[in-house]
C-alpha cells in the first residue's frame, strides 16, 4: 500500500497544471497497481489555501486547515509536485507553500517534479528551480520530470508522462514505506544528553523510566 500526495499550484479554473497533475497521478497509480502495489492519492490544490499560506508566512503558524494539509503530506510515501512556470521559476504561491511546510516534512520523500508553461522555452524550470529546491529539502527527486508547454498537450505528452511514471514507480518501490522521523522526540533526547554531559552540577535523581 502506497500513499501519494499530489501538490498542484495552478491558479486558473480549469487549470492545465491540474490537468497535468491528474494525468501523472493516474499514470503512476496505474504503474504501481500493475506491479501489485495498492495506491491511494490525495490532491492538494494550492489556490484554495492561498490565503492560509500567506497568513502562515505572516504570523508564523498554520491555521487548522493548513495543518491538516501538512499532516497529509507528512503521512505520504511519495509526492507529485506540479507548478506553473512563472518568470523563469516555479510560482510564488508554490514556493510559499514549501516555505511554510514544517522543516523535515519532505526529508527522504520520493518526489516527481512537473511544470507547465506557455512555451517549451521554459522547460529547464524543472532542472534549474524545482530540482534544487526539493534537493535542499532533502527529498529524493525522481530523475525524470515532466514539463508540459501548451503545445505539448497535442503532442507526445503521454509517452513522456509514462516514462516519468515508470521511473517514479520504481523509485517509490525501492524506497518502500516511508520511515517517519519524530523530530520532537529526537530534540528532547539530544537535549537530555547535552544536559547530562555538560551541565555544571550533578543532575537530579535518576529519571523514572
Amino acid at each position, binding site marked *: 500500500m502506497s500513499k501519494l500526495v499530489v501538490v498542484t499550484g495552478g491558479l486558473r479554473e480549469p487549470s492545465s497544471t491540474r490537468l497535468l497533475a491528474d494525468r501523472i497521478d493516474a499514470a503512476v497509480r496505474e504503474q504501481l497497481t500493475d506491479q501489485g502495489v495498492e495506491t491511494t492519492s490525495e490532491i492538494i490544490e494550492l489556490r484554495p489555501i492561498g490565503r492560509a499560506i500567506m497568513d502562515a508566512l505572516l*504570523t508564523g503558524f498554520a491555521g487548522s486547515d493548513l495543518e491538516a494539509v501538512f499532516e497529509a503530506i507528512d503521512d505520504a510515501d511519495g509526492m507529485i509536485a506540479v507548478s506553473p512556470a512563472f518568470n523563469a521559476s516555479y510560482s510564488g504561491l508554490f514556493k510559499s507553500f514549501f516555505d511554510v511546510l514544517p522543516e523535515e516534512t519532505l526529508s527522504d520523500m520520493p518526489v516527481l517534479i512537473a511544470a507547465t508553461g506557455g512555451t517549451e522555452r521554459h522547460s529547464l524550470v524543472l532542472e534549474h528551480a524545482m530540482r534544487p529546491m526539493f534537493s535542499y529539502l532533502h527529498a529524493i527527486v525522481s530523475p525524470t520530470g515532466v514539463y508540459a508547454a501548451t503545445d505539448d498537450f497535442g503532442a507526445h505528452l503521454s509517452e513522456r508522462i509514462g516514462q516519468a511514471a515508470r521511473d517514479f514507480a520504481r523509485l517509490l518501490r525501492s524506497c518502500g514505506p516511508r520511515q517517519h522521523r519524530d523530530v520532537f522526540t529526537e530534540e*528532547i533526547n539530544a537535549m537530555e544528553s547535552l544536559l547530562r554531559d555538560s551541565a555544571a552540577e550533578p543532575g537530579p535523581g535518576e*529519571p523514572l523510566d
Partner: protein
Amino acid sequence: MAGMQFGIFSVGDVTVDPTTGRAPTEAERIQATVTMAKKVEEVGLDVFATGEHHNPPFVPSSPTTLLGFIAAQTSRLILSTSTTLITTNDPVKIAEDFSVLQHLSGGRADLMLGRGNTGPVYPWFGQDIRAAVPLTVEHYGLLRRLWREKVVDWDGEFRSSLQGFTLAPQPLDGVPPFVWHGSIRTPEIAELAAYYGDGFFANHIFWPASHTERMVGLYRKRFEHYRHGGADQAIVGLGGQVFMRPNSQDAVNEFRPYFDNAPVYGHGPSLEEFTAQTPLTVGSPQQVIDRTLGFRDYVGDYQRQLFLIDHAGLPLKTVLEQLDMLGEEVVPVLRKEFAIGRPERVPDAPTHESLVRAAAEAAADDGSDDTTEEVDT
C-alpha cells in the same frame, strides 16, 4: 498572593498609534512603562515583567535598570522579565544584576530566561546563533553555580574561564531568584526547565493553544521524569493577550485598527480569525474571564498568568483602563475561580518567602537522617 500570580508582560515596542499616526518618543515609552508597572501594583495584580531587546523600535535594553527604578516606587510588586537573554548576556553579569535587584527590591525579583529571536543580536554580543542551544545550556549551568556556590572555578566553551570567583552580592537570604524558562514551541527549553525543576512559561499569545498544550504537557511529564515531583506539581506560567471594554462590540471596534496594523500579526489574518486560532480575547471582561479560565482545561492548574496589554501602539490611557478592568473585574474572579478544585498538592506560585522557607526545610532535612520526601497523594 497564595495560589496564582497575575500580572502583565511588556515587549516594550515603540509603535505608531494607527488611529493618530503618532508614535511615542523613547522617553515617553519608558516613562509610560513605569506608570503601567506602578498601576499593576495599585490595582492589586502581582507581577510586572519586561522584555529585553537590543534594537529599535524597542526600548528595554537594560531590564534591571528599569526594574530597579520600578522597585523603588512599589512595595509589593514582583519584578520579572520576559525574557532575559541567556544566550547573549554574560551569565556573570546576569547573576550580578539580578542579585543587586533582589537586594534592592527586598526579594521581589525573579526572571524568565529565553534565547531571543533576533538573529543579529548574537553577533552583536559576540556569539554564534548556530550554537544557541549548547550556549543556553552552558550559560545557564554557570549562572546556577554562581548563585549557589561561594567560590566558583569554571571552564567552558563560550566564555573565558573563572578561577576563584565569588559573586557579590551573594543572593538575598542565600536564595537565588526563581527562574522561569520561556518558550513558544522549542521542546529543548521545556526539557531544560524540567531537568532543573525550574518554572516553564509558555508564551501562549501568538500561536494556537494546541502548541501550548503540547509544550506544557511535555514539561510536566519530564519534570516528573527528573523526580522533582508529580507532573501536576510542575511550575507553569502562561501568557495571554486581551483587550476589553464593558460592551464587547466596542472592544472589537476600538482594537481592530491596532490589530490590523500590529507588528507581529498585522496585515495577515482577520481579528476574528486570529481570535479563534489563538488565545487572544477581545471583548467584555466576562469574556476574558471565561476564556482565561478555559486555559486550565489544557495546561492543568498553573501558577502564573501574565497578560500582554500595551503593544501595537495602544496609548497609555487605554492601557491604564485595561489595568483598571483587570484589577477590579477580572483578576478577583480568576483568583476565586482558579482556587476552586485546585488540589492541595499543586504548589502555589513561588515567591522569595516560599523559597526561603523551602531552603530552611531542606537544610533541616539534611541535618536529620535520611528523611525521605513525602508527597501527599
